[in-house]
C-alpha cells in the first residue's frame, strides 16, 4: 500500500530527476556512439589507405648492387672477349622550363648568355638556334649525348632549367668495324639489321643480359679484312666490296665485311643506304669460281677419272648460243689446264658430261638452292632454277652463269670443297670445341684432296699467282663475271671474285674477296679481271691474318703437286 501512496508535492521533482537522468544517459550513449563511429571511421580510412598502398601504388623500388650493375642491354663481344657493343652510361642535355616553380622566366640569365656558355662547352652548337630554343620556353633535348666531364661544366653554369638526365646508350667501340654483323639499336630500344636484331630477346632478358654474348668474329681479322678490302676497293675505284673469312671445320665466320660500311654509333640517311649487306643479301653470278665445284662434282660422280684427258677447246655452238673463252687457249686442254686458264668451253663440256641433274644435286647439297645459313636477318634468295635443266643451262652453270648466289654461299661451298667434303652451315655465334654442326657430306674425301691440289695449282701456275703469299700455301680460284643489266650482260661492269683457302696442305680457313664493278685503272694494270684486283687483296690479307689464326708461314711445307705438275707444263695463263 505504501507504494501506492506518494506525496503529491514530491512527485513532479522526482519525475524531473528521472527525466534528467534519462537524458544524461542518452547523451552519454550518444557520445559513446559518436566516439565509436569516429574510431570506426579512422579504422576504415586506415584500411582503405592500406589497401591503396598495397594494390594501387607501385611497390617501392629497391635497387640492389647486382641490379645496378646489370647492364640495360647485354654486351656483345668477339670470340676473344673484346667488346664490340656495350651499354654505355651516357647523359643527355634536357631543357626543362618548369624547373623553377616560381612562375617567372625559366632561366636566371638571359637566353643569349646561357646559349653562349653552352657553346663554350660544345663548340659545334648553333648559337642562334639554341638562343631561340631557350627563349621559346618549350621542353626538349638540346643534346642527346653528353660526357660526364661536360655534365660537370653544364652544372657549373648554374641554371636549374638545364637538366642532365642519365640515359643508357649503345656504344660500338670499334666504330664502323663489323657494322653489318652487329647492326645497331634504334631509338625504340630494339636491335636492327645485324646480330643486335637476332639476339634482341637474349640481350634484353634480365636473367641473361649480365653475360656477354661471344660472336665467332675475331676483331683483329675483321680489322685486317676491312682494311685490305677498303684499300683494294679505293685502288680500283670499285663501287663496293665484300669479304668473308670462314673456318672450314666449324662454319664459324671469323670476319665478314661489306663495303661501303656505316657507323652504328651514328645512323643517318647515308648510313641507312649503306646497310645493305653484299655478303649475305645480294646475289651475284660468280662466274669462274664455280668451275672447281663443277670439276669436283664430275670427279666425285666418276665422270672425270683421268685428269690428263684432253678436251677440245674450240668455241661451242649450242642452240644458237656460242660458248667461248676470252682468248685462244690452244686446241685441247686437260682438267688442270682448264682450271688454271679458266676455260669456259671445257668447263661447259665437263658439266654437259656430268648432266644437269647431278650438277644441280651437288650445288643444292652445297646449299645454293636456298637462302644462306647465317643468323643475320637479311639473307638473299639465290636465283635458282628448279631441275631438270636444259642442256644449255647445265653448260652455263658449269662456268658460273645462270645461277646467282651470295658470296657467303660460295664461301660455304669452298669450305666443303677443301675440308674433306662436308658442308656445314655458317654461323656468327662462337662454337665451342667439339660442338660444331655435323653437316652433310657432299664430296668424297678423295675428291676434296684432289681439289686441294688443283686449287693450289691455280695460285702457283694460274690466275691466282698474286695471292701466293710465301709460306702460307694459298689455293683458290678467280672469277670475273659480267653483270647482267638491261639488255644482256654489260661488258664494262664486272664482279671480280677470288675464292681461296689456306694452308692447302691442311685447309683451315676460306677467304672470299669480291669487288663490285672495279675499273680498269693503272693500279690494276688497266685490267678489270679478278687476277688484277681481288687476288692481290687476298695476297696481302692472308699474311696478316694467318699468324693470328694459328697458321704460321712455313717455306718448307706445301701440298704435294708432283703428280699433277707434268700435266700443265710451265703453267701461266690468264683469266
Amino acid at each position, binding site marked *: 500500500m505504501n507504494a501506492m501512496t506518494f506525496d503529491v508535492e514530491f512527485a513532479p521533482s522526482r519525475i524531473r530527476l528521472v527525466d534528467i537522468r534519462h537524458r544524461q544517459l542518452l547523451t552519454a550513449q550518444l557520445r559513446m556512439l559518436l566516439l565509436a563511429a569516429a574510431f570506426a571511421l579512422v579504422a576504415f580510412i586506415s584500411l582503405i589507405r592500406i589497401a591503396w598502398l598495397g594494390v594501387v601504388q607501385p611497390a617501392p623500388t629497391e635497387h*640492389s*648492387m647486382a641490379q*645496378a*650493375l646489370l647492364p640495360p642491354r647485354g654486351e656483345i663481344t668477339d670470340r676473344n672477349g*673484346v*667488346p664490340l657493343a*656495350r651499354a*654505355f*652510361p651516357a647523359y643527355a642535355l634536357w631543357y626543362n622550363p618548369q624547373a623553377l616553380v616560381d612562375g617567372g622566366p625559366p632561366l636566371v640569365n638571359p637566353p643569349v648568355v646561357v646559349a653562349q656558355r653552352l657553346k663554350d662547352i660544345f663548340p659545334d652548337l648553333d648559337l642562334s638556334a639554341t638562343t631561340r630554343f631557350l627563349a621559346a620556353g618549350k621542353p626538349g633535348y638540346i643534346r642527346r649525348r653528353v660526357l*660526364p666531364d661536360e655534365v660537370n661544366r653544364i652544372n657549373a653554369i648554374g641554371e636549374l632549367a638545364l637538366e642532365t638526365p642519365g640515359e643508357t646508350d649503345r*656504344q660500338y*667501340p*670499334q*666504330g*664502323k*668495324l663489323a657494322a653489318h654483323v652487329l647492326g645497331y639499336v634504334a631509338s625504340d630500344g630494339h636491335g636492327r639489321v645485324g646480330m643486335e636484331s637476332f639476339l634482341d630477346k637474349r640481350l634484353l632478358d634480365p636473367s641473361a643480359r649480365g653475360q656477354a654474348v661471344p660472336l665467332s668474329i675475331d*676483331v*683483329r681479322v*675483321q*680489322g*685486317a679484312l*676491312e*682494311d685490305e678490302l677498303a684499300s683494294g676497293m679505293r685502288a680500283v675505284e670499285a663501287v663496293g666490296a665484300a669479304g668473308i673469312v670462314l673456318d672450314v671445320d666449324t662454319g664459324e665466320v671469323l670476319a665478314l665485311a661489306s663495303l661501303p660500311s656505316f657507323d652504328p654509333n651514328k645512323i643517318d640517311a647515308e648510313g641507312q643506304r649503306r646497310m645493305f649487306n653484299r655478303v649475305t643479301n645480294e646475289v651475284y653470278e660468280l662466274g669462274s669460281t664455280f668451275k672447281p665445284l663443277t670439276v669436283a662434282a664430275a670427279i666425285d660422280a666418276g665422270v672425270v677419272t683421268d685428269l690428263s684427258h684432253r678436251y677440245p677447246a674450240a668455241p661451242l655452238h649450242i642452240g644458237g648460243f656460242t660458248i667461248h673463252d676470252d682468248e685462244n687457249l690452244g686446241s685441247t686442254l686437260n682438267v688442270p689446264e682448264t682450271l688454271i686458264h679458266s676455260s669456259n668451253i671445257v668447263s661447259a663440256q665437263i658439266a654437259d658430261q656430268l648432266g644437269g641433274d647431278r650438277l644441280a644435286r651437288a650445288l643444292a647439297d652445297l646449299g645454293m638452292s636456298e637462302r644462306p645459313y647465317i643468323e643475320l636477318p637479311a639473307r638473299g634468295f639465290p636465283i635458282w632454277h628448279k631441275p631438270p635443266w636444259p642442256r644449255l643451262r647445265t653448260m652455263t652453270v658449269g662456268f658460273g652463269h645462270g645461277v646467282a648466289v651470295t658470296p657467303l654461299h660460295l664461301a660455304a661451298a669452298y669450305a666443303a670443297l677443301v675440308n674433306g667434303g662436308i658442308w656445314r652451315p655458317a654461323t656468327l655465334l662462337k662454337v665451342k670445341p667439339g660442338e660444331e654442326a655435323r653437316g652433310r657430306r657432299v664430296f668424297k674425301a678423295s675428291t676434296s684432296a684432289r681439289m686441294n691440289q688443283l686449287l693450289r695449282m691455280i695460285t702457283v701456275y694460274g690466275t691466282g699467282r698474286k695471292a701466293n703469299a*710465301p*709460306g702460307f700455301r694459298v689455293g683458290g680460284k678467280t672469277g670475273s663475271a659480267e653483270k647482267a643489266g638491261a639488255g644482256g650482260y654489260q661488258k664494262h661492269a664486272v664482279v671480280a671474285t677470288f675464292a681461296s683457302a689456306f694452308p692447302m696442305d691442311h685447309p683451315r680457313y676460306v677467304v672470299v674477296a669480291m669487288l663490285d664493278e672495279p675499273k680498269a685503272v693503272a693500279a690494276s694494270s688497266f685490267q678489270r679481271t679478278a687476277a688484277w684486283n681481288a687476288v692481290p687483296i687476298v695476297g696481302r690479307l692472308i*699474311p*696478316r691474318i*694467318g*699468324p693470328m689464326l694459328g697458321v*704460321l*708461314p*712455313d*717455306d*718448307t711445307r706445301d701440298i704435294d703437286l708432283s703428280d699433277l705438275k707434268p700435266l700443265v707444263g710451265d703453267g701461266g695463263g690468264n683469266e
Partner: protein
Amino acid sequence: MTQQSRLRRMGWIAVLALCTMCYLGLHLKVHAVRSEVVRSERQIVALEAQKSLLETEFETRASQEQLASWNRVEFGYAAPTAAQFVSGERQLAKFGTPRAAGAPEPIRVASLATGEDAPAYPKFVSPLTGKAVDDKLLEPEVRRVNLDAHYERGALRIPLAAAIGDVRE
C-alpha cells in the same frame, strides 16, 4: 606487497631495461653496418660505371681502324715472314748453345728475384674494414654436386652437372 617481492620486481625491470638497452645498441650497430654496406655498394656501382666509361674510351681510341691508320702513317709494321718464326725444337735449342770464344757479353736486364729481400705481394684489402682479407675467403667456393643417379619412372635421368663432379663457381 612484501619487501622481497618488490625487490624481485625491480630486479626484473632492471634486467628488462638492460636487455632493451643491449638490443637497442645491437640494432643501431646493425643499421650502421648496413648503411656502410649500402654506401660501399653505391661506391662500387659508381666505380664500375667509371671503369666501363674508361674502358669504352680506351677501346674507342685503340680501335682496329685507328691502329691500322697509325701503322700506315707512323710505324709501318708488316706481317712477319716465315724466316721470323722458330720452326722446330732444333732451332729453338740453337738459342741455348754456349757463347763462343770472343763473342760479345750478353746484355743483362735488371730483375728482381724472389729472394728474402723481395717485398711480399700486396694483399687484397677489404673496402669496408681497410684490413687485409683472409686468403680463404678469396678462394672460389667448391660446391659438391650429388653424384648419385636417381631412378625415376621412365628413362634413367642423370643431372647434367653430375658428370662434372666438383663445380667451381
